[in-house]
Every structure is written in C-alpha cells, then in structure tokens.
C-alpha cells in the first residue's frame, strides 16, 4: 500500500524519532511504499492565514498554498500518525496540518451546511502516540487526541476502515523496558500492516 506517515516531533534523538524510524523501516520492509512526511523537517507552517480562511470554501482555490500536501494526502491509501501528546492535544504543527490541508474538496465536502466526509482513498489508519501523563489522567480529561483519531479522522476515511491506536502513557515515568516493549509492539504492528 501507499502509506503516508505524518510525523511531528522536533528532536532527532527523541523516543518519538525512534518510533518514527521504526514505523518507516518496518513498513518499507513489509513492502509498502512509504511517503515519509516529517512535518518539522519539512518546515510545515501550521497557521491558517487570513487569505486561506477567506477562500476556505472556494474549491480549487482553497488548496493552492498547500497543493503538494493535498496531493500526498489524496495519493495515499493508508495513514500513520506518529506524534507526542502535548497538553492533552496534538502538537500545533500537526493540528495545523488538519486545519490547512484537510479542506473542503479534500477530506470532505459541504452539502447544505453539512459536512460529508470524502477521504475514502484512506483504507487504514494507525496512530502511534506517546503521553507524558498516566492513562487514568488522560481518561479523566476525556483523552482528546484518542477521540480525534477514533472519532473525527475515522469518520473522514473509508467507512469501516480499520483504525488502530497505539499509545505509551506516562512517558515521564517510563523506563528502558517500557519503551523497548512499546517499540517492539509498534514494529510488530507495522510488520503486519
């Protein structure tokens, strides 16, 4: 499959970078064509501009500032997100990717003021996520990033497409053993992707 990997972490030596490397390597080894989109390395600007907001609903025009990203999203058959959870949400650089690239005419269309999802080229979605806080704390907050994947993105892609959410919670108190186990789990999931 053509798999678009969206990665959002600034530090090359981070555990997230290790997860990212594992995801890309295991997917390629399994025979997938990986489009590796490292948002930090590509210097993605996550701020929707005035002009983009004004043309948000103008099909054809709305995508002109992010055309290469739109093509990559529409050219993919599967999507893998690799990112940390910061303040119980997505890092701004990834949140802004959805704000700017998941546009009308790309991931959905508007019909009588209602959103009709249309990103049906994506037939599989996996998120590889690390949380600073413990699982119970994320649950208490309502786990917003999990809901973004499991409810919002799931609704955009092909109906009934499999959605997998792999999370390491409590990173602040993680150990070499917990991190190694999570890397192994992520690697295995990519190997059978």
């Amino acid at each position, binding site marked *: 499959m053509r798999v678009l990997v969206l990665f959002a*972490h*600034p*530090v*090359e030596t*981070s555990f997230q970078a290790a997860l990212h490397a594992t995801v890309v390597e295991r997917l390629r080894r399994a025979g997938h064509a990986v489009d590796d989109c490292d948002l*930090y390395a590509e210097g993605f600007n*996550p*701020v*929707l*501009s*005035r002009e*983009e*907001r*004004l043309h948000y609903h103008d099909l054809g025009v709305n995508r002109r500032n992010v055309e290469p990203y739109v093509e990559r999203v529409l050219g993919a058959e599967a999507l893998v997100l690799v990112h940390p959870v*910061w*303040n*119980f*949400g*997505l*890092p*701004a*650089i990834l*949140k*802004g990717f*959805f*704000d700017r690239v*998941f546009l009308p005419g790309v991931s959905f269309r*508007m019909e*009588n*003021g209602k*959103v009709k999802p249309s990103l049906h080229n994506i037939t599989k979605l996996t998120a590889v996520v690390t949380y600073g*806080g*413990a699982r119970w*704390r994320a649950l*208490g*907050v*309502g*786990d*917003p*990033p999990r*809901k*973004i994947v499991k*409810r*919002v993105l799931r609704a955009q892609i092909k109906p009934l497409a499999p959605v997998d959410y792999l999370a390491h919670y409590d990173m*602040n*108190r993680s150990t070499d053993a917990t991190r190694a186990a999570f890397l192994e789990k992520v690697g295995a999931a990519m190997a059978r992707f």
Partner: protein
Amino acid sequence: MRALVVFAHPVPESFGAALRDTVVETLAASGHEVRLVDLNAIGFDPVMDAEERRRYHDPGVNELPVADQIAHIKWCEMLVFVYPTWWFGLPAILKGWFDRVWVPHVTFLMPTESQGIRPNMQNIRRIAVVTTCGATWWLSKWVGEPGRRTLLRGIRPLCHPLCRTTYMAHYKMDSSTPESRARYLAKVRQKIARL
C-alpha cells in the same frame, strides 16, 4: 480582576473578532483590568522547535523564548479564550501557545515516583471560553469536544483548586444567520458581564 483575553483568528473582520471586541469591552465595563493577546496579530509562532524541546524541563531556561507570554499568565486572575473551533479543537496557533508557554516549573511541577503532576497556576481563579463550532451540539458532544476538554480539563487543573469555568459556543456556524449571531453576541455580553 485582572483578565487576560487570548484571541485566535486570522481574519480581522471576522465574527470571531466581533466576539473578541464584545468580550474585551464587557470586561472593561465591569471594572476588570484587561490585557489582550491577539495571537495572529502578534504573529505568534506556535511551533515548539528542537532547542526549546530539549530545554523544556530546564527551570528558568525554558521560560526565555516566551517570557512575555509567561508574564501575562502569571499576572492574570482570569483567562478568557476566544477562538473558532476547527476540527473539534483549538486552532494550531492557540494549541501551540499552550505547548510553548505552559511549561513545567512555571505552570506545573513535574511528577515524581511518589507524586503526580502538581499545579502551579493558583493565581487563575476563572476560565471562560467563547467559541464557534461548525458542527452541531450533538456531534460535538459525541466526538467529546476535544477543544473544550483540552482547556477545561487539561489546563484547569493547573489553576486554583476552586477555579470556576464558563463555556459558550455558537454551533452550526456554517448555517448561522445575522439573527443567530446577534443572539450569540448578546449571550456572550451577558455571561461575560457576570464573571
């Protein structure tokens, strides 16, 4: 009270800007001391870079890149957020304001083996949210309102233990009318006046 209004919208002539003006005017008329942070207007960079991430846990050093914003949040007793809800969450520019400004040792103390994360923003006793949603109330509830929860359940526990919260939203913005928007402005004025 000392009120900090944090505003995010890229279009100066938007309904969001009208909400911002209503909030600021109403707070001032009620006798609050108001500061406004207009994130798009000041060109706030929401992307935490590698150097900042590496120094994220270093007391003092982690404050330097955003010292002006940290001064604002330490100054205020009330936080009012005015923003459009995009993809059920905060616009990236506002999300990044939390990522970069709400750093450890300033806003919270890191967890230890025996103790969880501890709050450090007891100066904030009131949080209000004024937003607009493209989605319906039902859909927002079903998705779990990620934006609302990031603020009122993620950020609120870092504030004063008795910190009270207020949340207002105009749903179905894409089919809003001049009347529905005027009603919402009036509701915002009324609720903000009572803070």
